[in-house]
Every structure is written in C-alpha cells, then in structure tokens.
C-alpha cells in the first residue's frame, strides 16, 4: 500500500468514524443513565438528516446559500429540534416504564423506532432527498490523496462537539448530576437531584448529537432517506459496546475504531467490502470475550 492510499484510507476511516462516534455517544449516555438500549436512536439520527435538508432548502435560496454559516445553522436547528423530540419521546414512551423490567422499555423503544421510520416514510416519501454540498470547497494537497473541506469540517466538528460534551459532563453542575445519576440513581435522588430533569437533559443531548451527525451524513453524501438510520445506528451501537457502554470517551474511541476498521479491512483484504462487517463483528466478539466491559468500561456491580 502506497502512502497515498494509506493516507486516503485514513481519511475515509476518520470521516466514517466521526459519524459513528457522534451517534454512539447518544447510545452510551442513555444506556449509562437509565440502562436502556434506545433502539429509536438511529431513527432520530435520520430525522436530523431531514431537518438539515429542510433548513438547507429553505436557506439556500436566500442570501445565506453560499455562507459558511449555513452548515452550523443546519446542525444547530437539527440538534435543537430532534433533541426536543427526544425529550417528548422519553416523556411519553419511556418515563412511564422507568421502574418496569428492562425488557418493557426496550420493546417500547422498538415501537418508537418503527413509528418514527414509518412516520418519516409517510411524511417525506420513499424517494431519497438529494442536496448539494454545503461544505467549503477547498482542497488540501496531500500527494495523490484527496483531503477536502468536507473531510476537515466533519472531523473537526465531531471533535469539537465531543470536546464540548466532555467539558459539560466534567465541569458543570448538570454534568455532575448526570454522572451521579448514572452511578446510582436512588442515591442521587436521595441527594436531591431531580432525576427526571437529568434524564430529560441526557435525552436532549444524546439525540441532538445524533441529529448533528445525521445532518453531516446527509450533507456529505447528498442523500437522505427514511431508512438511513438503521445501518448507521447498528454500527454506532457496536461502537458504543466496543468502547465500553456507558463511557463517553469509550464511545468516541469506539466510533473511530469501527470507522478505521471498516476502511482498512476493505482496503487490505481481497473482496474486503463484502467481508468488512464480518471483520467488524469478529473484532467485537473477540473483545467481548477478552474484555466484556469494552475498552473504557467498568464491570457492572451487581
């Protein structure tokens, strides 16, 4: 493998990894705080893509069409809109089941996922929506490899969002309350933390980050369809487990690892693109056998 190809596969993998990592954060945060595998998370990612698309269509005809502000506005709108939707979903579908056996909210999440996917099919139609690239058009010369504005913007925004989340969780009172709730919900409640409020904020941030990823995926590939949440959600969930479910740095690292693993297994193996999922899941299984808690996870106490 020449340097050009190596550099290009690194870029491909990091871009993929950024998408997975942002979605994985939502899975891991929600699992960490209420032990729920939020099956509807991939569909919230998809709704983020649509929100970005409609903001793009509305603004691209106005003066903002060429501005660098377009993408941040798309991401912010999608983040807030989908975040709020996620809070509503939690209120309706998960909160009434807070003390039910764990399978009940899981089934409820499955229902929400089906509901969102079919709702999107009805509302937005079956044909994929297509959009032009809102990314800056510059190219960075890197030998034979292509590194352009979209790659830089995607990786940098993902890193900034993850850094922001890390600072929020580590240094704010709400972040402290989230960590306390994740450690021991009853004890946190006894300390006067408003659990429902903390959980709502978690749902808001988790879904918002997923929606931001949806906007970037839609803008980068130029295709948004109602079923795009499934495959991405699956890979992101794998990332969250690999990194250690419940651990925020773990989700970031897991996402990047899965992205790189996909790109390099495609590159290095003959017929690699057909085998890459096998490789990814083989690594996951191997990891779960040797280190069940994932890279950064801690063993759950019983």
């Amino acid at each position, binding site marked *: 493998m020449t340097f050009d190809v190596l550099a290009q596969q690194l870029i491909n993998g990091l871009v993929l990894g950024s998408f997975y990592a942002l979605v994985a954060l939502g899975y891991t945060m929600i699992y960490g705080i209420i032990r729920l595998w939020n099956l509807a998370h991939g569909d919230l990612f998809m709704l983020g893509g649509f929100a970005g698309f409609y903001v793009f269509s509305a603004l691209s005809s106005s003066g903002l069409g060429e501005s660098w502000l377009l993408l941040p506005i798309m991401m912010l709108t999608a983040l807030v809109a989908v975040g709020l939707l996620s809070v509503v979903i939690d209120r309706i579908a998960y909160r009434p089941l807070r003390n039910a056996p764990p*399978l009940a909210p899981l089934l409820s999440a499955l229902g929400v996922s089906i509901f969102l996917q079919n709702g999107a099919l009805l509302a937005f139609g*079956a044909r994929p929506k297509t959009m032009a690239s809102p990314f800056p058009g510059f190219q960075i010369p890197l030998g034979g490899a*292509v590194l352009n504005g979209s790659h830089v913007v995607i990786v940098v925004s993902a890193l900034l969002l993850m850094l922001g989340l890390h600072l929020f969780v580590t240094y704010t009172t709400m972040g402290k309350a989230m960590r306390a709730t994740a450690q021991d919900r009853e004890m946190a409640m006894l300390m006067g933390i408003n659990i429902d409020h903390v959980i709502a904020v978690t749902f808001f941030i988790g879904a918002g980050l997923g929606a931001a990823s949806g906007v970037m995926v839609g803008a980068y590939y130029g295709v948004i369809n109602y079923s795009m949440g499934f495959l991405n959600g699956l890979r992101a969930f794998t990332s969250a487990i690999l990194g250690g479910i419940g651990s925020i740095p773990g989700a970031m690292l897991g996402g990047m690892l899965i992205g790189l693993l996909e790109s390099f297994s495609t590159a290095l193996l003959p017929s690699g693109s057909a085998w890459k999922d096998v490789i990814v899941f083989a690594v996951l299984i191997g990891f779960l056998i040797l280190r069940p808690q994932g890279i950064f996870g801690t063993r759950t106490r019983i």
Partner: protein
Amino acid sequence: VSRIMKTVRWLPGFVALLTLVAACAPAAAPPPPTAPAAPAAPGATSAPAAGASPAAAQPAASPAAAAQASPAAKPAAASPGKPIKVGFAGGISGDAAKVGQDVQTAVQLAVEQANAKGDTLPGQKLELVTLDDKNDPREGVSVANRLVADADVVAVVGHVFSGISVAAQPVYRDAKMAMITAVSTSPKVTEQGSNNVFRTVGRDEQQVVIATEAIAKKWPNPKIAILHDKQTFGQGIAELARDSFGKKGWAIDTFEGITAGEKDFTPLLTKIKAQNPDILYWGGLSTEGGLIAKQMKQLGLNAQFFSNDGIWDTTFIEIAGPAAEGALMTIGPSLEDLPSAKDFAEAYKKRFNAEPTGYAVYGYDATNVIVDAIKRAGKADRDAVRAAVASTKGFAGASGPVSFDQKGDRVERYYVLSTVKSGKFATVKE
C-alpha cells in the same frame, strides 16, 4: 402476588407496543407520491377504472363506452356484470419505489383506456387490483397469495425487481395464472421451468452483449473493475459481465460486492483507484449507483462509469449530480426514438400530468398484452388467458412489436447504449 404484580407491570409496555404497531400497519403502504392523480389507497386498492378518466372522452371511444356504461342493465350471457380483475404487484413504497410507481401508473392508464374503448369481454369491465410488495421477496409471496386467492383476478403485471419476481412466481404457476413483469431482467426469472412467466423487457445477457460491444469499440484492451450489490439482479448481471469481459481476455482486477443501503464506498473506491482501471462496471440499483459515481469523482477515480438498466431511474441522476454526466448504460430506447410510443406518451401526460419515465412503457405493453389475451381467450379463465399470452406474436405494443419465446422472454431485442446528457438519459447516437 409479586409474580402477578410483575406481569401487570409489563402490561403498559405491551399495550404501548401494540398501539404503535397498530398505528404503523396502515401506514405501510402510502400512495405513490409521484402520481398525484392515482387513487391508490393503503393496502389493496381496487381502482375500478370508470369513465372519469380523460381517455373516456375520446370521440372514437365514446359509443363503445356508452354501451358499456350500464353493464348491469344488459347482462351478458357469461358472468353478468362481474368485473374481470387484472393485478398489479410490485414495490410502490420503500426505497426504490419510483421504479414500481412508473409501471403502476402505466398499468392503470392501460386498464382505463381498455374500459373506455370497451376493449374487454362483452358486458364486463376490467378492474385493476394494486398490491404493494415494497420490493421485499417475503411481501412479494404474500401479495401473490392474496391475488391468487381472489378468483376474479385472471392475470398479473409484476413484480418489479428480479429477486421478488423469482420468489413470487411459483404461487402464480400453481394457480395457472400468467405473470408479466415489466422490469425484471435477470435470466433466472424465466429459467424456473414454469410456463406462466413472461416479460416485456429484455434479458441481462442481451445488455451485457451490448456493453461488451460498446467497450470493445472504444477501448482496445481495457482494465475493468466490477462492483455489485449482492442481490439477484445486481450480482447476476455482474457475473454475466465478468464472464463476457473475461472471454474477450480483458483484465478484471476487482469483482466485489457492497451492501445495499450503505452510503460510503470510499474505502473500496480508493482501493480501486490504486489499480487505475479504465472502466468501472456497476451491477445494482440507482441509489448506490449514484453514490458510487459521485464518490468516484470526489476521489479522482477517472474510470468510465458503466452500468445497465438497474440505474434507469432519475434517482441516479439526482444523486450523482454532475458526476452522472457521461456515464454509460444499457437501457431501453428513449420514448422520443420510438414512433410507436407517441400515443402512449401523450395519453400518459394527459392522465398523470407527468412524462412517462423508466419502465412505464413496458408496464403499459404488459397490460395491453393481457387485455388482448383476454379477448382472444374469449373467457375470463386464468389458464386460457395464460395460454393466449404465451401465443402472443407481433402484438403492436407502444415499445414495438411484442412476441414471447418458449421461455416467456421477449423475442425482440431492445437494449441500446445510452448516456446521461444535461441531466437526462439519452441514447448514444453512432
């Protein structure tokens, strides 16, 4: 007691889930968004193509239409007033819904025209039964069973993609019912040993021959990369292309499958770029095809994008954008190049306020072959209609004459080398 309490606490979850599922069930088959005039309701749609259609207003047709207007008043001898049902089965929702919607609207037009002209058995109207299989083989089989269970359905136009057509055809075979597909081109469709399967489109071997000829003309000794989507149609045609190119002695460095539904093919395309092929041949459908063409351009992979009628859907051009320009593919001829399609194109435009695209004309011909067969059979009997369809020779279709061979394949060769020019599919003129 605690065990009972536990069960009771489960209930809200189950109820919530059941409600959601119930809410989603009717939502599963939305009306085709591209056909505003199509009165397609969720689930099974009986569209009694009555005199409301503009076609009914055609002067030449009106006396016949008037005679048919009150069939109940003058019952015919055979089965008075009972409609003869023709089925349409195919994906009109889901990912590649546009392809099926094109066909469904054309089928509807053909049925409406036949009724307006009184082009059926005396005293009986045709009725279209549209069932959506979402381009899913399991749904396809279930839809086929529903059509077969309705004793009034005599023949079916469907299904859309080859994998679904192959899965559903035994159901029709056992019911001795003709199925004419207007889209499925995989050899497997007519190689199942049944006598009830026909198609108004070509076979993939034919388009691979044309692709090979076109490549040989322009590239003396090309290096080729072949990608496919691991589906019946996509992998099938990719293998045919590999065999055909291989016989010419051309170097095929890559033959790889991708996963349909994915969006990122850059790792694979980066690998292919390092091999510097002259041509990238794609066996699959329009969404992934469009993404591949687009990402090739982004990565600076300058091979010629070459595909087939799998990407014959404006979705390909929308997704690939400027990268679609100059792409080559083997598809049916443009309607402008078919003098026989002029009346169809005008009637379609008038009825649906949109240009007929993709496989519409083949759906129209498939329906008219059935209409013709019903008349020749002289009775609304499945096996008689099937036999009449099988004996179709030189039927004057909108896409040209239609004849079927022993297997049910269309005898006339129809593929032409085409490209994308200014955002439209256009035949390559020598």
